[in-house]
C-alpha cells in the first residue's frame, strides 16, 4: 500500500511537472542554502583548524589574567602577571620536565620609518626559539641569537611586506629603521608567506623580546609565554606542571584565583570550532526560515490539489478507500514532494559549495577544501520530509474528510 502510494505519488508529480517544480522551489532553495552554509562553515573551520595545527600540536600558550568569559571581559587579559621570573622558573627542568622550548612573547603595533617611508608593522618581541616554534626562518640574513636577547640588541627581522613598504626594491639588510625614536638594524628579512598563515608574519617586525620590552613597549612583563612540550603525549602533564610552577611563583593556593591561563592547541581548536559552529548554526537557522516558507507553499498547492481532485477522492472512497487510505495518500504526496525538493537542494548545495571551494582555493590561493556536510544532508532530508508531513497534514485531513457523494457530485 505504502509502496504503491509512493509510486502513485511519483507518477502524479511527473504528470504535473511544471507545477511540481514551482511547488518545491521553496524547499529546494532552503535546503540548498542550508547545505551551502554548512559546507562553507565546515570548510572555513577546517581551514582555521589546519592553520592552528600548523603551529604544532605540542604548543602551549600561557596568557596573563583570567580566561576571558566573553568579549567584554577581554580586559581581564591585560595584566602584568607574567614576568621574567616566571619564564626562569618554567625554564628549570625540575619544574617543567617535559618542556623543550620556552619563549616569552610581547607584541604591539607601532609605526616604523625608514628615511621618508613609514609603515605600521606588528611588533613581536621573541627569543631565537621563534624560528623553531613558528617554523619561520629569514629568507635573507639571520635571526638574532641569545646573545642579542641578553644584550638588548637593537636588531630587527622584518616581514616581506614591511620590507616592500619601507625599502621597495632597495636592499634592506644592514639598514636601520626607526621605531619609537630608536634605530634598529635590519638583520633578516622573512620570505613571503601570504595571507594563509593564521599569524601573518609578512607585516611583522621581529625583535629580541628584551629589546621590545625596553625600548618600544616600556614594560617589564610578557604578553604571552609560549611553551613547547617535548611530545604530544606530554602536553597535559606539561600544562599541569606549568600551572603548579606559576602558582608557586605567584603564591596562589586557590586555582580559581589564577592570574594566568594556559591554553593548549586542543583548547584553541575547540574554541575556534565552537565559534564557527555557533556561526554556522545561526546562519542555518536563518536559512531554515525559507524552509518554513517553502512548507507553506507546499500546503497551499496541496490544498489546491485536494480541491482539484475532489472527484478522485470520492471515487477512491466509493471503491473502498478508508479515511486513513486517503490521508496516507496525500501525506505521502506532500512528503515525496518535499523530499524530492530536499534531494535536489542537497545536490545543488553540494555543487555550489564545491564550486566556491574551487574558486576560493584558486583565486585566493587558500587551502580551502570542499567538505560535503553529511550530517547537514541527512538533517536536510529529514527536515524536508518532516515539512511535507506537517504541512501536508491539513490538506490530507481535508481530503480524508470529504464525503464520497459530495466528492463524486463535484464538477
Amino acid at each position, binding site marked *: 500500500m505504502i509502496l504503491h502510494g509512493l509510486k502513485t505519488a511519483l507518477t502524479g508529480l511527473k*504528470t504535473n511537472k511544471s507545477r511540481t517544480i514551482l511547488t518545491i522551489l521553496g524547499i529546494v532553495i532552503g535546503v540548498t542554502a542550508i547545505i551551502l552554509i554548512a559546507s562553507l562553515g565546515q570548510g572555513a573551520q577546517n581551514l582555521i583548524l589546519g592553520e592552528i595545527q600548523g603551529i604544532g600540536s605540542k604548543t602551549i600558550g600561557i596568557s596573563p589574567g583570567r580566561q576571558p568569559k566573553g568579549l567584554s571581559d577581554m580586559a581581564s587579559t591585560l595584566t602584568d602577571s607574567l614576568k621574567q621570573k616566571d619564564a626562569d622558573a618554567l625554564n628549570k627542568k625540575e619544574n617543567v620536565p617535559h618542556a623543550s622550548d620556552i619563549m616569552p612573547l610581547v607584541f604591539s603595533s607601532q609605526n616604523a620609518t625608514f628615511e621618508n617611508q613609514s609603515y605600521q608593522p606588528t611588533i613581536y618581541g621573541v627569543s631565537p626559539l621563534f624560528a623553531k616554534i613558528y617554523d619561520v626562518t629569514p629568507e635573507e640574513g639571520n635571526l638574532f641569537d641569545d646573545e642579542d636577547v641578553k644584550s638588548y640588541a637593537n636588531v630587527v627581522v622584518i616581514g616581506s611586506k614591511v620590507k616592500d613598504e619601507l625599502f621597495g626594491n632597495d636592499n634592506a639588510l644592514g639598514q636601520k629603521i626607526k621605531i619609537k625614536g630608536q634605530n634598529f638594524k635590519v638583520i633578516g628579512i622573512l620570505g613571503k608567506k601570504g595571507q594563509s598563515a593564521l599569524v601573518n608574519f609578512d607585516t611583522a617586525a621581529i625583535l629580541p623580546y628584551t629589546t621590545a620590552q625596553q625600548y618600544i613597549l616600556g614594560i617589564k612583563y610578557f604578553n604571552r609565554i609560549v611553551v613547547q612540550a617535548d611530545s604530544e603525549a606530554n602536553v597535559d602533564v606539561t600544562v599541569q606542571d606549568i600551572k603548579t610552577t606559576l602558582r608557586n611563583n605567584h603564591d596562589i593556593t586557590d586555582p580559581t584565583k589564577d592570574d594566568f591561563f594556559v591554553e593548549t592547541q586542543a583548547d584553541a581548536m575547540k574554541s575556534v570550532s565552537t565559534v564557527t559552529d555557533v556561526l554556522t548554526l545561526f546562519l542555518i537557522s536563518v536559512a531554515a526560515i525559507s524552509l518554513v516558507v517553502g512548507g507553506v507553499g507546499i500546503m497551499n498547492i496541496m490544498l489546491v490539489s485536494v480541491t482539484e481532485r475532489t472527484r478522485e477522492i470520492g471515487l477512491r*472512497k*466509493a*471503491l*473502498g478507500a*478508508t479515511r486513513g*487510505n486517503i490521508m496516507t495518500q496525500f501525506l505521502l504526496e506532500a512528503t515525496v514532494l518535499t523530499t524530492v525538493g530536499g534531494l535536489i537542494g542537497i545536490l545543488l548545495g553540494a555543487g555550489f559549495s564545491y564550486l566556491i571551494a574551487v574558486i576560493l582555493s584558486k583565486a585566493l590561493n587558500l587551502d580551502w577544501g570542499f567538505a560535503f556536510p553529511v550530517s547537514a544532508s541527512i538533517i536536510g532530508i529529514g527536515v524536508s520530509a518532516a515539512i511535507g508531513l506537517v504541512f501536508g497534514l491539513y490538506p490530507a485531513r481535508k481530503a480524508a474528510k470529504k*464525503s464520497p457523494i459530495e466528492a463524486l457530485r463535484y464538477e
Partner: protein
Amino acid sequence: MSVIELKNIEKIYFDEDVETHVLRGVSFNINAGEFVAIMGPSGSGKSTLLHILGFLDRHTKGEYRFEGKTIDDYSDEELAHIRNKKMGFIFQAFNLLRRTTVLENVKLPLLYSGIKESKWSDMAKIAIEAVGLSHRLGHEPSQLSGGEQQRVAIARALVNNPEVIFADEPTGNLDSKSGKIVMDILQKLNEEKGHTIVLITHETNTAQHAKRIIRVRDGVIENDDLVRRRLTNGEFVK
C-alpha cells in the same frame, strides 16, 4: 436469500433548519442474483437511494440490512471494507483516473483490498477480458471512446468479484449503440456470473434490461414490478 433489506428507510437533509425529506419510508428486498432497475424522474430520490444502498450515504431513519446484518453496527471503516469487497460501482461520468492506463484504473479497488500486489495485474486483466478490452490495457481514458471508458469502469467494478454492482445512470453519457453494449455486458454479468445488479436510470429502454423495476416518485415507491417483456440483444423476450 436477501442481500439487501430496506425497512421504512427515510432520508432527511438538514440545511440550516430547513428539512428536506428526500426518502419517506422506502421498503424492499433485493435477493442475490437479481437485476433491479430503480427508475424515477429527477428529484425523485432514486440517486439518494442508491447512495444509501452503496454505503456512500447514511439513512436518517429505518433499517438497512446488508447480507442480514444491520449497517448501523458498522463503523465508517468497516463500511469502506465491505464496499471494497462486496460492491462495485459504475457511474454516469465513468470516473476513471486521468493519465492513468486502463490496467491501472482497473487495479484501483485492489489497492484497498489487502490482496497481495503480485496478484493485482492478473485479476485486473481477467476483469478487462470480461468487458472485451484486453487490446486496450495500456491506453489512457482520453484515448478511448465513451463506451469503452464505461466498459473500463465495469471492469473496475468487477475486479474484486463483488456481490452487488451498483450502476448509476451508466448509459447516461453514451450514444444508444455504446449504451446497448454496456447494458448487454451488465446483463451478461448478471445471467452468467450471477452478480446482483442495481441499476438507476430514467430511460425505459435501459431499465428493460433488468428483471425487475422499482419506480420511485417523491421519496416513496410508486410501483415495484417484474419486467414482463425484457430486452435482450435488442429483442423483447418473455
